[in-house]
């Protein structure tokens, strides 16, 4: 028996005694998985594909070396092992890519019959589906997210985004009554590391379907699936230059945003960088969409189905290690159920499996980078120094790689930094409220406005709260659900414009 198991065993014995004495713990029964259900390791295999040692830039339909000849290493955040070398694109490479995209737009893409554009995009969707297992494994290796998530969410959704948008290509005039929508030209896109392939799909699919060509930069820490996507695009036979993928760092992204021949900028990332981009675009004719940070309130009312709500809260904050802009990172609980909720949350967190992202049983994988891990650790210290009560899972963390225990903070005030600022990690703050109005006021007391959650069995209360929360996506009795048909995007400082659905086409068109 390992040391940890012994401890748990003592705990569970105590729990059994408690039940014998009081009939229940804190008026609720606890599911004790630890001693009775042991999971054997179930790692996903990696023998069905081979990564290249070195990846070049994808410009004008070909893989080309970066002008300056510089490469950087991309790692597996769960082991810190190097996976491959990636080209570091500079402004010269970006310029080449934009020129290729412009040429492709002028000479080929804008002249194609719309239904042919649709067929190319359908092809991408199908090829992604065919290679889904490889994509899922690479996504997990490079980003640290649990294989279950990349397999069941990231990759299928990415394919679905291409499939959905493909169909719009020859139907745009139905989407905008009274208008004849036209493409803008070259779209420059910069995407984050939390959903590498999915964000590429969110950006590329609507851009192509509306008749634009693309220059896109994946995040520096997670370039691999975008480069696999380049292979798919090549295989799908897209005309050269219609999609160009330039890997690199912040300066590479800045070169795309600032390139004078880009007609539209689409950025997903932090509010801080979003504001820099918005400012940089002042005085230009470029259209832009910004999908920025969030600090969403997830509200549990006393009449909520509590066990479902607990699962929703867990999914809301610990999905993808909390690296989700729309994560439900602020839990608001009605005072009367606070004790029950916090007890159940702690029990549930104790049972989350934190560790090897490649293991199919893993609930919480690796933090994406050392930089992000340091940031989360810093916020953990800030939370404690601000006087919050805290709870962390007692789980063992792997010795190598970047990991962080799922964490709760309560006894926090609205003004605390851990309540106001986006942590982008598995850290949940918990506040209480008494009235519906107080919940709404607290939910809206933030500069952000991306998403929110409501848990109650009372329908009229759902509509009331959903109407009054100033945010772009509201989940009622569910959380963190995504679909290509469903528009996504924020109010206030969470960004502007929508991605996905019919509304996600608008930013890529002039009317």
């Amino acid at each position, binding site marked *: 028996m390992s040391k940890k198991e012994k401890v748990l065993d003592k705990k569970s014995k105590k729990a059994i005694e408690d039940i014998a004495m009081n009939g229940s713990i804190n008026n609720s029964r606890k599911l004790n998985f630890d001693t009775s259900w042991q999971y054997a390791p179930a790692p996903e295999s990696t023998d069905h594909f081979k990564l290249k040692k070195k990846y070049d830039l994808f410009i004008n339909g070909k893989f080309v070396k970066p002008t300056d000849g510089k490469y950087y290493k991309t790692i597996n955040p769960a082991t810190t092992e190097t996976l491959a070398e990636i080209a570091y694109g500079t402004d010269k490479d970006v310029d080449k890519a934009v020129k290729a995209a412009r040429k492709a737009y002028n000479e080929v893409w804008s002249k194609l019959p719309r239904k042919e554009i649709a067929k190319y995009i359908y092809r991408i969707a199908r090829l992604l589906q065919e290679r889904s297992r490889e994509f899922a494994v690479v996504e997990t290796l490079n980003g640290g997210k649990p294989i279950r998530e990349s397999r069941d969410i990231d990759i299928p959704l990415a394919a*679905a985004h291409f499939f959905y948008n493909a169909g719009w290509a020859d139907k745009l005039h139905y989407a905008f*009554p*009274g*208008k004849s929508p036209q493409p803008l030209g070259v779209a420059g896109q910069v995407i984050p590391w939390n959903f590498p392939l999915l964000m590429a799909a969110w950006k590329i699919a609507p851009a192509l379907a509306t008749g634009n060509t693309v220059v896109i930069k994946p995040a520096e820490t997670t370039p691999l699936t975008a480069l696999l996507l380049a292979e798919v695009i090549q295989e799908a036979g897209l005309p050269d230059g219609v999609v160009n993928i330039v890997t690199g760092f912040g300066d590479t992204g800045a070169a795309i945003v600032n390139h004078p021949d880009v007609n539209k900028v689409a950025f997903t990332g932090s*509010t801080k960088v*979003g*504001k*820099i981009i*918005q*400012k940089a*675009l*002042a*005085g230009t004719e470029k259209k832009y969409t*910004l999908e*920025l940070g969030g600090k969403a309130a997830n509200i549990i009312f006393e009449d909520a189905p509590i066990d479902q709500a607990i699962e929703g809260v867990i999914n809301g904050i610990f999905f993808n290690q909390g690296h989700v802009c729309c994560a439900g990172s602020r839990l608001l609980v009605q005072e009367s159920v606070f004790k029950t909720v916090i007890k159940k949350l702690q029990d549930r967190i104790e049972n989350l499996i934190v560790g090897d992202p490649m293991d199919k049983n893993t609930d919480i994988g690796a933090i994406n980078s050392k930089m992000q891990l340091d940031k989360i650790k810093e916020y953990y210290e800030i939370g404690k120094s601000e006087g919050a009560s805290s709870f962390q899972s007692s789980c063992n963390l792997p010795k190598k790689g970047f990991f962080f225990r799922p964490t709760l903070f309560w006894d926090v005030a609205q003004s605390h930094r851990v309540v106001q600022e986006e942590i982008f990690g598995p850290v949940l703050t918990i506040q209480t409220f008494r009235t519906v109005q107080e919940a709404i006021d607290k939910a809206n007391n933030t*500069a952000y406005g991306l998403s929110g959650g409501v848990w109650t069995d009372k329908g009229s209360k*759902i509509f009331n709260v*959903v*109407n009054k929360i*100033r*945010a*772009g*996506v*509201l*989940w*009622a*009795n*569910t959380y963190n*659900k995504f*679909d290509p*048909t*469903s*528009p*996504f*995007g924020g*109010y*206030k*400082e*969470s*960004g*502007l414009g*929508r991605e996905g*659905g*019919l*509304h996600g086409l608008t930013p890529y068109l002039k*009317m």
Partner: protein
Amino acid sequence: MSDRLNINKTYKLYIGGKFPRTESGRAYTIEDSKGNTLCHMSRASRKDFREAIVACQSAIKGWANRTAFNRSQILYRIAEMLEGRKAQFVDELISTGATKGSATKEVELSIDRLVYFAGWADKYTQVFGSVNPVATSHFNFSTPESMGLIAIMAPDEHPLLGLVSNLAPCIVGGNTCVILASEVNPFIAISFAEVLNSSDVPGGVVNILTGFKSELYKHFGTHMNVNAIICCADNKDQIINMQENAALNVKRFILRNKVNWMSDAGQDPYFIMDTQEIKTAWHPIGI
């Protein structure tokens, strides 16, 4: 000529449903084409701008919560009031140098445009919203929702029609606004405020300032309670400054300085959507 002496109007600002003088006590002179003094206008200051934002802020909740039908009727009511004062506005436009024909056309178009947007109040959410067929067992719908507080820099040309064409799509969607009136012909905007004030438009929903763009444009960009800027002005430096400052709190910036307000392009339902957010809600379908 009768011996009777005319009673000249004192033009003030329109803030929170009241007509205060500028707190700065400053005025500037408007002349007709022959160089005769037409009137003196209040020259609004930064503090007036901020007062107007406060008025907007306090009116937001009430206005956004009005039913679409109610907002529709209130916009229609503005048109009714304007129709009744048609002669006054035609005269005022003529005093700025417009011909009788073009003045009449501008007033008539303004009235019709109000009616046009009044009609959109309970339709744009139907036309521009959607029910989304998600692939999971959820009911999912997207609806336009008011953006909040809009700062509008009205066009200099067509001082009535330009004002109405920007104001109507903004407030029909449940927003409140602060408007800097045409700098060259501002008094018509204040006369229009009298129309608004007798049209059941709640105080604070529309606030109208007169003054200098060069003095006030900076505050459009920097005020942190402004959710969006609609700019119908041409000065490139001012536009860039507002766009840069918009990034302070990710304001939406809508440039409408190339619209011919007398044409059909001046009444576009997509103007309503410029100051709407799309909100998407999910709920599971099941037991």
